């Protein structure tokens, strides 16, 4: 049993960077390039872990703490999410509030670390990060509330397990709307196009990437790994809602879940390739759309 | 008897109109002095024939104070003030008289509404007294000089007194004297004030008082 609960965590820890690799690969394929290997994120992390560190004179202990706290909070958050047929390591009423706020805690420290450098570019990124996440938060909570209303559960692990085809059958529009809202939140929170462009090299236009300009070595590895975990976490929720396959056999369910993750990664790559990044001023509107979608999902 | 009372009352009403229409300050003081004498007469007439010592002495002293002493004070104040001896009304004399007539009508109406509990010797009593008081106030409101206002106050007081006399009020002597003393001191103090005003302002026009206002400046 314990192994079953730890499994989602192990899968997440192991496969999270792979998801980024899949997205990058998808984009290269669509662009007609060969692209980097699927395992490139792992290589990157490995290389970073073996580097030294360079710190700016202006920075303080906050700058060094930021990546650790951020990674720690994401690791704990993952313990709350189920995967495939396996329940989460821990579940209690209201745990998704903790989930959301653990991510907020991580963000809090990353943002402070960015401000610690005194660089105006990182300040700019930090400012955008807090702006967009402040707007993404209500959308996330409303989406979760919509799911909670459909399933009658207020704990994330039972809630996601309770979503089934029968729920879809009788509340398809609501779940659809919720899913749409969740996908927007997913894109925004993980700094994907159309909100942010993870591959841009112009500091003025970036959000997440610009915040971590000054980090290097193991610190940067922690941040990158944390980002991968965060994407995995959101993706898990989306997949659990979109592919509520409960065959009875946990291993089959897990395989289905992994397939779902793959599809989502590819879909993200497709979205990124087919869309341009939005103007920064338009991003709040996109998030507002997410809020409206989620509210509709709850109210209906 | 009641004819006599009636004629005194009519005379009192006439003095009211005279007060409103005279343009000379001195004439006005004379009119008020005459009112004082008439009041004394009225008070004696209202004694119902049973003349007592106090019943005669009080009206006499009233006549003395109101008819001679106070007018004298006012004359003195006027002389000391030594300014233009015109009345200088704020509204024209014609308008004053019209206002006076209106007030008379009002007084008559009020007299109708407020019936005396016991049958009065003359139906004119209450209206005439009220009319006199109103005229006093009218003078205060419509005249410029401090002296005229003191005069108006006196006329008002006369009206009130006339009412007292008219309803044959038997106030204790002490009170009557007290009232008289108050009026006397009042006018006396006013006279002093007028004297100071004339020295301080070089005019005694109270409508130019404006040092203490709350008008937004």
């Amino acid at each position, binding site marked *: 049993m314990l192994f079953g609960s730890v499994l989602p965590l192990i899968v997440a820890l192991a496969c999270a960077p792979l998801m980024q690799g899949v997205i990058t690969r998808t984009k290269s394929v669509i662009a007609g390039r060969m692209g980097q290997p699927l395992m490139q994120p792992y290589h990157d992390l490995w290389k970073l872990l073996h580097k030294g560190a360079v710190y700016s004179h202006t920075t303080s202990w*906050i700058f060094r703490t930021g990546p650790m706290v951020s990674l720690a*909070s994401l690791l*704990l958050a993952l313990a709350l999410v189920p995967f495939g047929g396996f329940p989460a390591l821990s579940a209690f009423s*209201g745990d998704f509030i903790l989930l959301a706020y653990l991510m907020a805690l991580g963000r*809090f420290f990353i943002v402070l670390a960015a401000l610690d450098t005194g660089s105006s570019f990182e300040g700019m990124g930090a400012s955008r990060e807090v702006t967009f996440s402040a707007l993404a938060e209500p959308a996330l*909570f409303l989406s979760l509330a919509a799911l909670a209303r459909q399933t009658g559960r207020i704990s994330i692990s039972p809630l996601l397990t309770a979503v089934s085809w029968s729920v879809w059958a009788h509340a398809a529009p609501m779940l659809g709307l919720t899913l749409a809202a969740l996908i927007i939140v997913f894109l925004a929170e993980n700094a994907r196009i159309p909100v942010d462009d993870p591959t841009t090299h112009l500091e003025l236009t970036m959000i997440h990437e610009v915040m971590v300009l000054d980090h290097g070595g193991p610190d940067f590895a922690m941040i990158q790994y944390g980002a991968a975990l965060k994407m995995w976490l959101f993706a898990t929720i989306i997949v659990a809602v979109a592919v509520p396959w409960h065959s009875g056999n946990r291993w089959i369910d897990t395989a289905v879940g992994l397939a779902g993750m793959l599809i989502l990664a590819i879909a993200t790559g497709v979205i990124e390739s087919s869309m341009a990044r939005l103007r920064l001023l338009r991003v709040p509107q996109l998030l507002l759309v997410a809020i409206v979608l989620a509210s509709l999902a709850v109210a209906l | 008897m009641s004819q006599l009372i009636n004629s005194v009352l009519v005379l009192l009403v006439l003095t009211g109109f005279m007060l409103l229409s005279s343009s000379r300050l001195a004439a006005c003081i004379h009119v008020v002095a005459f009112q004082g004498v008439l009041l004394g007469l009225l008070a004696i007439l209202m004694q119902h024939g049973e003349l007592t010592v106090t019943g005669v002495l009080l009206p006499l002293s009233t006549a003395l104070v109101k008819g001679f002493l106070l007018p004298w004070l006012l004359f003195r104040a006027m002389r000391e003030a030594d300014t233009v001896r015109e009345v200088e009304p704020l509204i024209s004399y014609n308008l004053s008289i019209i206002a006076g007539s209106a007030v008379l009508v009002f007084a008559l109406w009020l007299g109708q509404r407020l019936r005396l509990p016991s049958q009065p010797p003359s139906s004119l009593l209450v209206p005439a007294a009220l009319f006199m008081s109103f005229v006093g106030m009218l003078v205060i409101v419509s005249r410029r000089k401090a002296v005229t206002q003191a005069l108006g106050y006196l006329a008002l007081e006369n009206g009130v007194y006339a009412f007292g006399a008219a309803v044959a009020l038997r106030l204790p002597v002490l009170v009557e004297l007290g009232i008289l003393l108050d009026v006397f001191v009042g006018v006396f103090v006013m006279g002093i004030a007028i004297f100071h005003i004339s020295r301080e302002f070089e005019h005694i026009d109270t409508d130019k008082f404006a040092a203490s206002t709350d008008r937004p400046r």
Partner: protein
Amino acid sequence: MTTLVASLLFFGAGAVASVIFARRQRWLRLFGAGGVILGSVCGLVPAVRVAMGAPPQSLRMAWDVPYGSLYLRLDALSAFFLVPIFLICALAALYGTEYLEAYRERKSLAPAWFFLNVLAASMAVVVLANNAVLFLMAWETMSLSSFFLVTFENEKKSTRRAGWTYLVASHIGTTFLLVLFVLLGKANGSLDFDRFGPASGAGAFFVLALAGFGTKAGFVPLHVWLPEAHPAAPSHVSAIMSAVMIKTGIYGLLRILTFLGPMQAWWGWTLCAIGLSSGVLGVLLALAQHDLKRLLAYHSVENIGIIALGIGVGIVGVSLGEPFVAVAGFAGAMLHVLNHAMFKALLFLDAGNIAHTTHTREIDRLGGLLARMPATGATFLVGAAAISGLPPLNGFISEFLIYMASFKGAVSSGAFGSVPMLATLSGLALIGGLALACFTKAFGIVFLGQPRSERAEHAREAGLAMLAPGFVLAAGCVLVGLFGASVVRAMAPLISNVTHLQSSLIGFDLAGAANSVERVAQFGALLIAMAALLALARTKVLARRRVSTATTWDCGYASPSPRMQYTASSFAQPLTTSFRMLLQTREVLTGMEETFPRRAEFHSHTDDPYQRYLFQPLFQSINRATAFLRPLQQGGVQLYVLYIVVTLLAVMLWEIA
């Protein structure tokens, strides 16, 4: 009860001693602060005991005042408010001993100590009073003494202005309370609280209480005095006012709820609406501020909004017959009262440390203070994380309970009943996100990066008396974050008092809520452990590598200067622009005209919208009306007599005819 009376006597003695030793600085400090600290410590003992479940105590004495009696009662509700009051007062007094020294040369400190004692005593009596006259007297004494503390630096015009606003606002608030208590007295035949009971017209009472107590608590739109008065006061007083004094408004509201009988759903909805607008507007306005203490003051509006949300959800829960929603809502609100007291006092005291050494509260003039004031910075970080509602600190626990209540309410009620719950939910989420933005700004700009001015450059760490309260409060934030469950469990009598629900129901649901809180706390502990583990790993890894320092990467620009750093205003700009409609920020941009512009200036200023569009026009129109009538008194005697004549005739005609 004897201990409580002794505590009040200590305050009294402190006040008297402050007058007697007005000219002896050392004695003044000793007795002024000693009175507050001794009184608070003395009062904490019974307060904590009753809060943890000891039976209520009361004391009644005759009092020769119309309708009054000296009737004090310490029950769970009072005790729960009394604990933070005493705690914060004692710490603030300790802080004041050092903080006020800066004013010693310029002015007498006697009023500051005198009124601090009076304020502490009057707050205690407010929550203890069991008679309306006594309550009102203590209430106004509290307002007056805090008014004098607010205007301590009255040589500044802005402070005097703030004082006036505060005075007028609290007076208007009290006016509603006068009516409220008189009507309650009329309905129940006595002005003693224990005679108050359910009466017809409960809705009207509720509205009156909302207006009266809401003014003190700072509910939007009655909050306008708050961002003026709190920053103007000396920092330890700001801490008391923001942390506990405005909570007496919440106390009053809850106390009134205990009288009113069955709760109606619309009360809850109203409170939710007020809470939402206070929370969102409070945090948005805070984001737009440039003054650190003003920013904190607006956060008080925000947090009061969160508390109102909790109470509102709780009331809706009671009226819908959902005990869990009710219990979690009220428990969250109550816990947030305690938590906000701790972290807001902490933040104000730290802001005081900063103002003390740099003589400025302008966020954009500060920077890099963490290196210069490490202890202040660390405690401020704890406070900032706590107020943003981040685990594992106390702010998260209370918000967590309110979230849970509204989730539960949204799940189990019909479409109609779920609307306020969902509004609360998304509102809380938005508030949480914005608060995070605001405090990353506050902490990031003030403490991180490089100093933006000479003053910040030479900042020095405060002394022990000013740091110790911060440590205590920071520790409190962590401890409540980790052991909040036991506090929640102790709230059963209090919640049954307010909600009139059966205690068995409350016990069950409270246990449920407490269990979740406990799990959260476990995660908090794990989080700390995990972070420590990672830190260990990182040190291990880096130990063998080269660690060097360099200039901040600035796109290749070699010598960045402090002036090039991002500022607080620019940090908040995307959000203030998004909410332009609510904030109406005024921006003035000059310069940038020639090809090589010499000088460009940019100012932005955000007025309080209610101040600007509601209260200023209101007071201006009163002024205009009086100015319009003033020519009535124009000086001429004739006119004056005419007034008399006309009035006389009019009344005669009216009454006689």
